[in-house]
């Protein structure tokens, strides 16, 4: 911050005006008063306003053909973002009044045909203490694990009108309290992987946050233009993860290999009815496609009603912002390429035979997983990647930005956030997500997976050809204050100039 704002002084035009400004400043300074005091707390009932939403808030949904078992599909869904590893004392329990669902539409009619539903329960072994654990925890049955969570998993077959439980007391992998409390967390993780029969595997518990991005990219939405991206802003955090592996033949309908997927969360209201409070299929839809005023509506809506959001896809906001800030022309509307990517699937890739446009993550289960996945997925030639399903390693931010900016319609670009991969490597077997960070390890400052790059070049991962643009100044308040002083001093100094038109002698400056 400049020590004396505004003292280097450009002269003002109206010198007399400057003098008057002095008077005005005196006035204003004298009359500037402190803000009025606060309202007294009241005698009327004041109830809390902000409810804890993270437990019901989907952050990511993945669906991919299992690389080590290509006849099965793996689903991964995360909740509760930005969990600090040292998150005591209650850590991050699953909500017990919620339904966590993975919905599958296998006939393209925008309605869920199969639903896998997790509901959680928890208890304290020792009712006299609220400690998470009372000693070293070596197994999920260890009596030292005081706070125990379990889940019931059921599958609902809407077509047949069937529902049956797959497990009623599935073990939940606990929050990784610390190395002393849980010296062998891998063992705990392994115990939480459940085979429920029929080739179906289930997992619920804490994991390292599999998403990787520079959150500053979203500053675009506020008109900030970014000259620097490249820090994985969610590095070092954990999430709560649900994972499911199902044989493909249990999912697909007939000979259509394409399935649509989305996760949702529902809560019970006071009358006992279940209300959907969160929904997530394709990543970033709620952040980037749906505007702020409709986010709640989207979260409460179902795919079959997605025609109401069509305009946000055919006429998206992000390319217009990029055009406004960087001057790169937005691709011509209507954006049918985005309709395919988000609402119907791309023909020949992951479009169901008969499709009602709706926002879902669509996976073509017949495309085999590749041994060398590319982070840019389909636009880099890797057909097993996003937007054909979503793998843990797919760089969805870069892909989404590049597609939004017209990669598929003849405007190739290198937009990206400069973060190309996760800070931690993923596993090679179910549930594939990495172990959570330990509560005793200090959280690192966040890995960056590439050199600092600009938004325009971050998708390339190397020094881009386009020059970085300087970021807009943030020093508005200082500038304003400086301007005020400028006006005064500048006016005074300017007045010292010898006036041109006079001929009289008085001892002016």
């Amino acid at each position, binding site marked *: 911050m400049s020590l004396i704002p505004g003292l280097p002084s450009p002269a003002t035009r109206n010198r007399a005006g400057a003098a008057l400004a002095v008077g005005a400043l005196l006035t204003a300074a004298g009359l500037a008063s402190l803000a009025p005091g*606060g309202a007294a707390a009241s005698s009327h009932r004041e109830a809390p306003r902000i409810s804890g939403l993270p437990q019901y808030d989907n952050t990511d949904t993945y669906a991919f053909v299992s690389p080590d078992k290509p006849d099965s599909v793996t689903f991964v869904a995360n909740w509760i973002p930005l969990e600090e590893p040292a998150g005591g004392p209650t850590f991050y329990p699953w909500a017990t009044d919620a339904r966590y669902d993975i919905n599958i539409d296998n006939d393209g009619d925008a309605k869920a045909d199969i639903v896998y539903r997790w509901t959680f329960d928890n208890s304290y072994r020792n009712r006299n203490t609220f400690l998470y654990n009372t000693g070293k925890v070596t197994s999920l049955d260890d009596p030292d694990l005081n706070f125990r969570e379990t889940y019931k998993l059921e599958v609902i077959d809407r077509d047949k009108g069937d529902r049956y439980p797959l497990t009623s007391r599935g073990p939940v992998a606990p929050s990784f309290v610390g190395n002393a409390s849980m010296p062998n967390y891998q063992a705990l993780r392994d115990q939480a992987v459940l085979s429920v029969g029929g080739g179906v595997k289930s997992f619920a518990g804490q994991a390292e946050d599999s998403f990787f991005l520079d959150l500053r990219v979203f500053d675009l939405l506020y008109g900030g233009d970014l000259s620097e991206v490249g820090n994985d802003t969610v590095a070092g955090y954990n999430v709560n993860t649900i994972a499911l592996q199902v044989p493909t033949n249990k999912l697909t309908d007939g000979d259509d290999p394409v399935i649509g997927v989305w996760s949702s969360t529902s809560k019970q209201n006071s009358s006992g009815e279940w209300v959907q409070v969160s929904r997530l299929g394709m990543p970033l839809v709620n952040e980037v496609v749906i505007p702020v005023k409709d986010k*709640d509506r989207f979260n409460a809506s179902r795919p079959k009603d997605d025609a109401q959001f069509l305009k946000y896809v055919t006429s998206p906001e992000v390319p217009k912002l990029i055009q406004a800030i960087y001057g790169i022309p937005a691709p011509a509307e209507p954006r049918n390429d985005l309709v395919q990517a988000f609402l119907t699937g791309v023909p020949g890739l992951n479009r169901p035979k008969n499709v009602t446009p709706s926002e879902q993550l669509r996976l073509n289960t017949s495309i085999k997983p590749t041994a060398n996945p590319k982070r840019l997925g389909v636009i880099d030639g890797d057909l097993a990647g996003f937007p054909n399903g979503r793998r843990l390693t797919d760089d969805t931010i870069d892909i989404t930005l590049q597609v939004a900016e017209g990669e598929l319609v003849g405007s190739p670009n290198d937009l990206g956030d400069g973060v190309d991969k996760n800070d931690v490597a993923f596993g090679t077997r179910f549930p594939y997500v990495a172990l959570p960070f330990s509560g005793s390890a200090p959280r690192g400052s966040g890995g960056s997976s590439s050199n600092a790059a600009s938004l325009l070049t971050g998708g390339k991962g190397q020094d881009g050809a386009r020059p970085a643009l300087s970021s807009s100044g943030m020093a508005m308040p200082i500038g304003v204050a400086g301007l005020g002083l400028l006006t005064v001093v500048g006016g005074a100094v300017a007045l010292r100039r010898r006036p041109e038109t006079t001929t009289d002698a008085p001892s002016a400056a």
Partner: protein
Amino acid sequence: MRRLLLAAAAPALGAAIFIAASVGPTAPGARSGAENDAAGPPGASITALQDHLRRQPKDTRSWATLGLTYVEEARASGDTAYYPKAQGAVDRALSLPGDDDLALSAAGALAAARHDFAAALRWGDRATAANPYSAHAQTVRTDALVELGRYDEAAAAARRADELQPGLPTFARLSYLAELRGDTKTATALLRRSHGPATAPADAAFVRFHLGELARGRGDYQLADREYAAALAAAPSYVPALAGRARVAAAMGDLDAAAGRYRSVVSRLPLPEYLTEFGELLESLGRDAEAQEQYDVVRMTVELASANGVSADLEIALFEADHGDRAVALRAAQAEWKRRRSVDVADALAWALHVNGRDAEALKYARLATSLGTKDARLRYHRGVIEDALGRSADSRRSLSAALALNPQFSPLHAERARAVLGRMS
């Protein structure tokens, strides 16, 4: 002419610049917190929001969230310093482009905190128009409609909020509406359901405290004390629970302990209702000079509130009717009745009319106050005394007995007066 205009513009600009510079946000701080960006839904921690807004001052949504969070902090901690900050944040949010429903809801919450419930409702309606799926807008509307006395509409708004984002905020409001209707069973059940092990301590304290109040309201002082103690276990500095413990100590006859607790309460959060209750306890103990000290502070508190733009007519009416200037009480109650017609304002107006000798009119309002069926001993006591003053002995006996049956020790001063009136009649 042009010069003159220019000359006039310059001082205006200068003044504006100076004022803006002195009350605007400070320079952006270090970037160290930037990576922990948690800009997002309400519930994000205050520090993360502040860090984010230093980097991105144009983020309307985060300003609105911060404003709402500051209002919550003010409510939860009792520290009124947060209200000007909340106002500043909300003003920022509203000044940025876009009609953000969260900012409008936050503005409504602030108006409600200032007791301007009509304005709060207008903000809530605007927020609903901007985002019909906003639960926050509905909670703001609920609160405003309840205080305005429009209970059916309030219930509709609360139900709508509950359909959008069910949770503790909606359960608590539905519980209050049930309590106002006299359905204490539903009220209790809803509160019990609303919290669990993962509830934030301040919210858990809120819930336990109101469970305690419900228990105390029906005379179960032991249970009430346990609930208040649980609230304090969750949040040891939660002053309403301390006041609750003071009330049950008085109700159970341990007046010295009650006085000590009240003293601790008023030294932390000297609200008019706590000061008045403490004063009344002291009065009932014959310590009139000390009681007067508390009453003097009530007047000051109310004056300060008014100076800060908070409408305090209801507090003035309630206090002055019993302990001060009757005429002032009546004026204040009438002024408040013009603004809103809730049961507590009806009760205050009834009592103010009564102490001014206008019992016939007072009865009308006392009946209104009890018309919902709220199980509140004080409402019935007021009505009973008014009926007695009108010579309606049967009605009076019924009202006063009902009051004492509900909550035999609802007030150290007034329960005795109720008993005295009853005693006189038989």
